[in-house]
C-alpha cells in the first residue's frame, strides 16, 4: 500500500476506543501497520513537567486532535513534526490555553503542568501563560521600543519593584536571547525596526522575561533565512539548560538538530514518540518512516 492510499484509509476509518495501555508499546516488536492509530514509541517519562492524557480538540464540527497522550520531561526539547494540518500547532496551543481565544474551539482530556490540571475550573490563564510562554511562527514584536517589548511582561506581572530592577530583567533577557550585543545601544528604537531574525530573538527574549518554566515555539524559524535560523537554533540549545521547550517545526533537519525527543503527528493523531536519533534512524511506524523519508508531507 503506498502512502496516498494509507492516508485515505486512515481518514475513512472509525476510531478505536482508547485504553490505558495505548501508546505504551515498548520493545522491538514487528513494525505496526500503517493503519494502526495507537501511539508507538515512548510517549511517557518519569517525573514529567507536563502530562497530557486523551486530549481531543474540536474546531466547531472539525475534530482536530484525536486522543493524544504524551508527557513532556523537565529541561528537554521536544520537537513536534508532521505534515501540514496534522494538528501539531493546535496541540501546542492547548498547552498554554491559547486556543481559548478561538471561539469555536473545544478541548477535552487532561493536561497537567506539575500535577495541576491547566483546564481545571479554578485555573486562571494569566499565571498559566506566564509559566508556559509562547513564541510564534511570524515574529510579532509590539509596536513599541525594544525596551518596552521586553518590559511588557514583567510590568503586567509586577515582576520588577523598581526601574533598575526592570532594567536588569531587560538586559538579562536580551543577553539570554543573544541579542544584547546587537541592540544594547538602541533600546529605545522600535522593535519592528529590527531584522526578521532579530525580531524573533526579541520575541524569545520577551517570553523569557516573564521567567516561564516551559517555552512553546510554533515554527519559530519558518519566516527566517538560514543564518537567522542557525542563530535561533543555537539559542534553543542554550535555553534548554534552564527551560523545557516544545517546538513545532516543518524542518526535519531542525528537529534533528535541536531536540532530544521527537513526536510525529498525522491527521490529528500522535503516531510515534521517541528519542530524536532513534526516530530519524529507526522509525517504528510506517507513517513516520514515510514522512521522514520524504514519501509524503
Amino acid at each position: 500500500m503506498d502512502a496516498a492510499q494509507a492516508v485515505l484509509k486512515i481518514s475513512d476509518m472509525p476510531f478505536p476506543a482508547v485504553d490505558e495501555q495505548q501508546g505504551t508499546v515498548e520493545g522491538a516488536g514487528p513494525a505496526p501497520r500503517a493503519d494502526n492509530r495507537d501511539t508507538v514509541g515512548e510517549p511517557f517519562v518519569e517525573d514529567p513537567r507536563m502530562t497530557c492524557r486523551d486530549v481531543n480538540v474540536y474546531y466547531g464540527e472539525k475534530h482536530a486532535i484525536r486522543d493524544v497522550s504524551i508527557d513532556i520531561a523537565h529541561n528537554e526539547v521536544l520537537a513536534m513534526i508532521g505534515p501540514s494540518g496534522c494538528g501539531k500547532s493546535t496541540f501546542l496551543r492547548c498547552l498554554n490555553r491559547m486556543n481559548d481565544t478561538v471561539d469555536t474551539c473545544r478541548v477535552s482530556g487532561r493536561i497537567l503542568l506539575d500535577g495541576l490540571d491547566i483546564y481545571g475550573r479554578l485555573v486562571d490563564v494569566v499565571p498559566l501563560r506566564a509559566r508556559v510562554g509562547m513564541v510564534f511562527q511570524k515574529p510579532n514584536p509590539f509596536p513599541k521600543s525594544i525596551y518596552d517589548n521586553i518590559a511588557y511582561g514583567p510590568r503586567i506581572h509586577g515582576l520588577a519593584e523598581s526601574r533598575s530592577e526592570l532594567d536588569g530583567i531587560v538586559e538579562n533577557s536580551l543577553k539570554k536571547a543573544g541579542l544584547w550585543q546587537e541592540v544594547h545601544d538602541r533600546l529605545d528604537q522600535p522593535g519592528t525596526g529590527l531584522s526578521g531574525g532579530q525580531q524573533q530573538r526579541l520575541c524569545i527574549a520577551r517570553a523569557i522575561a516573564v521567567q516561564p518554566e516551559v517555552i512553546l515555539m510554533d515554527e519559530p524559524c519558518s519566516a527566517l533565512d538560514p543564518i537567522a535560523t542557525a542563530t535561533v537554533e543555537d539559542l534553543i540549545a542554550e535555553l534548554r539548560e534552564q527551560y523545557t521547550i516544545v517546538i513545532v517545526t516543518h524542518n526535519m533537519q531542525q528537529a534533528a538538530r535541536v531536540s532530544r525527543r521527537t513526536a510525529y503527528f498525522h491527521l490529528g493523531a500522535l503516531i510515534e514518540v521517541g528519542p530524536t536519533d532513534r526516530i530519524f534512524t529507526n522509525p517504528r511506524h510506517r507513517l513516520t518512516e514515510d514522512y521522514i523519508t520524504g514519501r509524503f508531507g
Partner: protein
Amino acid sequence: MSFLVVPCLLLLLASVAFVQGKRRALAVAAGERLHSRPWYHGMLVALWCLIPGLLIYLLWVFFADSILTRLVLQELPREMLARGAAQKTLLVNDLHNLVAGHVAARDIDPVLQQAADHYRALAATGRMFMAFLMLGTAVLSAALVYFRISPDLRSRNHVEQIIRVGLLLCSTVAVLTTIGIVLSVLFESIRFFRQVPLAEFLFGLKWSPQMAMRADQVASSGSFGAVPVLAGTFMISAIALAVAVPVGLMSAIYLSEYAAPGVRTWAKPAMEILAGVPTVVYGFFAALVVAPCIRDVGTMAGLDVSSESALAAGLVMGIMIIPFVSSLSDDVINAVPQSLRDGSYGLGATRSETIIHVVLPAALPGIVGGILLAASRAIGETMIVVMAAGLSARLTANPLEAVTTVTVQIVTLLVGDQEFDSPKTLAAFALGLLLFVVTLLLNVVALYVVRRYREEYE
C-alpha cells in the same frame, strides 16, 4: 435639429469607426501576427473619431455665445453702447432674453429686436457649420488612423496612453473643484478685508454685524471681531468631542474585542444609523427636548441656564458624531494583526491589558484620524447649532449660556435679501474662509499624526 443630435451622431460614428477599425485590423493581419489585438485597433480609430469631434463641440459650447454677442453688438448703433459698462451689461441681458424668447418686462427697442433676430440667424448658421465641421473632422481623423492600421501599429500603447490621460482628467476634477471653491471664497473675502482690517477680524472681541444701510438709519456701526464666534464653535465642538470620543471609542472596543460576532453584525449597522439621521432632526431634538431638559435640571440645581445653550447643542452634536469615531476606530482596531494580540496573551496579559497596551497603541493613528474627522464634522456642522445654540455672539466659557458659531453666523448673514457689497454680507465669506482654514489645519494635523505613527506595525 436639436443640439444634442450632433453629439449622438458623433457617438454613432465612433461605434462605426470601432467596428470598421477592428475589421480592417483582422483584414491586414492576414496570417501575420498583429502587434495589438484587433480590439485595440478598433478602439484607436473610435477614439480618434470621438476626441477631435468632441473638442470642436466643446469649443463651440464655451465660446459661441461670446463671439455671437460681440458680432451682434458691433452692429448696434454706437450711442447705445456708449452709455457705460453697467448699461452695456443690461443691454446684453435684454438681448439674451429676447433670443431665448423670454417675455420682456418693458418695451423693446426695435433695434434690439432686430439684433436679436440677427443673433438667432447667426447662431443657426453657426450651429450648422459647426456640426459639419465636427463630423467632417471626426471622419477625416478616423480615416487617417484607419488607413494607417498595419500589423506593426502600436495601437495598444496609444489607446492606453489616451485612457491614462482620461483617468488623469477625472482625478483632477475633484482637485479643481476644491481650488474653485477656495478661490471664490477667497475673492469675496479679499473684498471684505478691504473694508474691515484683517487684524480686527481675527482679534476683535466684538461681533455685531448689523450696519446702517442708509446714512440716516439708526443702527450700530458694525464690528467684525471673529473671536467670540470662533470661541463658540470651539466650545460646542469641544463638548461634542467630549461626548463622542469616549463613547465612540469604548463602543468600538466593545464591538471589536468583546462582542460576540452575532451582536456585532447588528450592533454596528445600528450605530451607523445615527450617522444617517438628518441633522435637522437632530436640530429639533436638541432645541425641543435636550435644551429644555438641561434648563429644568439646571433650574432645580439652582443654576441659571438659558433655554438655548452651548451644552444642549454640543451634547446632541456629540451623539451625532459618535458613529464617525466608533466606526472608524472599530475598523482600525480590527486591522491590528491578531498575531500582536496572541503575542500579548502568550505572555499572560489579560484582555484589557492587551487592549490598553498593545491594541490601542497600534491602532492609535487610525483612531486619531477618526477623531479629527469627527472634529472637522463638528466644526462645520450647521443645522443643530442654528436651532439649538442661539445667535448672540457672547464671549463666554460658561456652557450653560447661549453662544453662536461660525456656521450659524454665515447662515444668518446670507439668509434673506442681501446687498453683496456691504461688509455685513461679505463677512460671511470671510467666516467661511476662516472655517475652511481651521478644518484644513485639522486635516493637516491628522495626516501628520497618521503618517508619523503609521509604519510601526506591519
